[in-house]
């Protein structure tokens, strides 16, 4: 009889709860949650972290993270985070926001939080569509992309152009670390985790505003199967939303 030894190579991060999520099959929110959970574990900050959930598909994110969590009004998470961090500089504060939340209704809050150099971390999920309300056009919906409120495709002469938030926020002096990553394959997911780690380290070192934009999929509202979605992201979103670091303050490089 041979002796069987087991080695644990993969488990749920302590910063996540043991529940089923409500996310659709093929959605990359689960991946993004896990990456954040792993980073919080690795930094050993679960016990002093406060998260802020948005309005959007990830509105229930507070059930999936085993960290203290508040639910913000649509777009206002950076304002709530500002209040929390200003009064509790020893805590680790992060917001988790979608593209409608951050780049449409909450543009004022995100721009000013970044401009002030609020020492918070923002996880920005860009899937180019409004998921929770059923697939309407988002501020990041691509030109000619069909949605339930742009059924003929986004006509930029009417609806204007998609917003590139990383490029926009990177121009602000208060922003210390701004990076766009993608969740469409394993290689990119690893890079995304590294960026998330850098973002939280930036906050913990008190260096200023940090944000990681994660290009994500929405199989349901894109009306594609999960694999097609990943390919569509790669082929359509990345050309318009190029990946990489858009702002790395000198002090962040030394982390």
């Amino acid at each position, binding site marked *: 009889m041979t002796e069987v030894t087991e080695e644990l190579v993969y488990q749920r991060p302590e910063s996540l709860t043991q529940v089923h999520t409500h996310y659709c099959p093929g959605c990359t929110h689960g991946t993004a949650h896990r990456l954040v959970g792993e980073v919080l574990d690795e930094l050993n900050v679960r016990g002093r*972290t406060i998260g802020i959930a948005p309005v959007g598909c990830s509105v229930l994110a*507070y059930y999936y993270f085993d960290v*203290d969590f*508040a639910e913000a009004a649509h777009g*206002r998470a950076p304002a709530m*985070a500002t209040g*929390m961090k*200003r009064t*509790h500089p020893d805590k680790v504060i992060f917001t988790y926001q979608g593209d409608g939340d951050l780049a449409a209704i909450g543009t004022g*809050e995100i721009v000013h939080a970044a401009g002030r150099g609020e020492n918070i971390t923002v996880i920005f999920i860009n899937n180019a569509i409004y998921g929770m309300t059923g697939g309407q056009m988002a501020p990041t919906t691509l030109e000619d992309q069909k949605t339930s409120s742009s059924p003929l495709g986004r006509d930029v002469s009417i609806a204007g152009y998609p917003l590139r938030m990383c490029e926009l926020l990177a121009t602000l002096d208060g922003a210390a670390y701004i990076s766009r990553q993608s969740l469409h394959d394993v290689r990119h997911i690893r890079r995304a985790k590294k960026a998330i780690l850098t973002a939280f380290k930036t906050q913990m070192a008190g260096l200023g505003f940090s944000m990681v934009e994660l290009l994500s999929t929405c199989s349901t509202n894109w009306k594609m199967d999960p694999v097609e979605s990943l390919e569509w992201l790669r082929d359509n979103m990345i050309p318009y939303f190029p990946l990489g670091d858009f702002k790395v303050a000198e002090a962040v490089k030394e982390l």
Partner: protein
Amino acid sequence: MARELWKGNEALAEAAVRAGVVAYFGYPITPQTELLEYLSLRMVRLGRTFLQAESELAAINMVYGVACTGVRVMTSSSSPGISLMQEGLSYIAASEVPVVLVDIMRGGPGLGNIQPSQGDYFQVTRSCGHGDFRPLVLAPATVQEGVDLVYEAFDLAEKYRTVVIVVADGNIGQMMEPAEMPPMRDISTEQPDWALVGADGRSHRIITSLFLSAEKLETLNLRLQAKVQRVRENEVRYREHRAEDADILMVGFGTMGRIAQTAADMARQKGIRAGVFRPVSLFPFPSAALETRSHQARRILVVEMSAGQMLEDVRLAVGKDYPVEFYGRMGGVIPLPDEVFDAVEKIHAEMCHD
């Protein structure tokens, strides 16, 4: 502590400091701005948090964030700014976190003007945001009363885990009167058992206003209503001036209560028995006390710097058969004592005629 001459807005700010406010977030708007300006130096010198937000919308959400962590926090604004804060106020009410808000009312609707007004009565007592909730609303008439109410507002906000609004018209914000400041309180280090402070050694806490199941949201609403009931039972406040034998009872809050007081004295000199009932808590409205007092009076005259908003609460209190008259001015025009006296005299003439 000696009496000092204080500008209303600055006195309210200092009262908040002494009550142990840890953080203030606000946006400049006349006639409230001195409150923000005062705290911009005072809070920083005390090592507390002051931040000028990019909008009232951001300010109330910064307040919301801090309130979730269980420390004393406030904002202030004037009428149009309060309108902008309504979203946050509704979320705060549903989340049951304590917040203090000061509203120094100006003329409306729209951009209106910067003159004193009481046109926010509905806004603060009724339509403070979507959904079923009622903030506790306190209306001072003097700088001293404003100081005392702001000082107490933080305790009330924590006691009921609710929004407490101290509402005053621009007069009270801009005027100077002697006031005695309450003692400086230590910042509380106690952490409420609902506060978000990091889940060290325990599972996570959640503060949310989202309840997808109708039954669960109804449960929250029932709890909010029970809270409203406790507030109604315990927090009624009002003042009277020569009301005990008044035939004509004027009802006015804030500055209008004071103007009515002068008008009542003018009427008494002419042999007209007039008095004043001044609600201090606008919510809960002192309905029972007013109803009791109305039995002894013969007429009620409601005076407001609005088209007659509190008037509805007075009518609800005394019933549709009671003779209730109204005198008000709008747009930032302040009804002067002689105008109010004329209205009293007219009612008196009608009563004699009857």
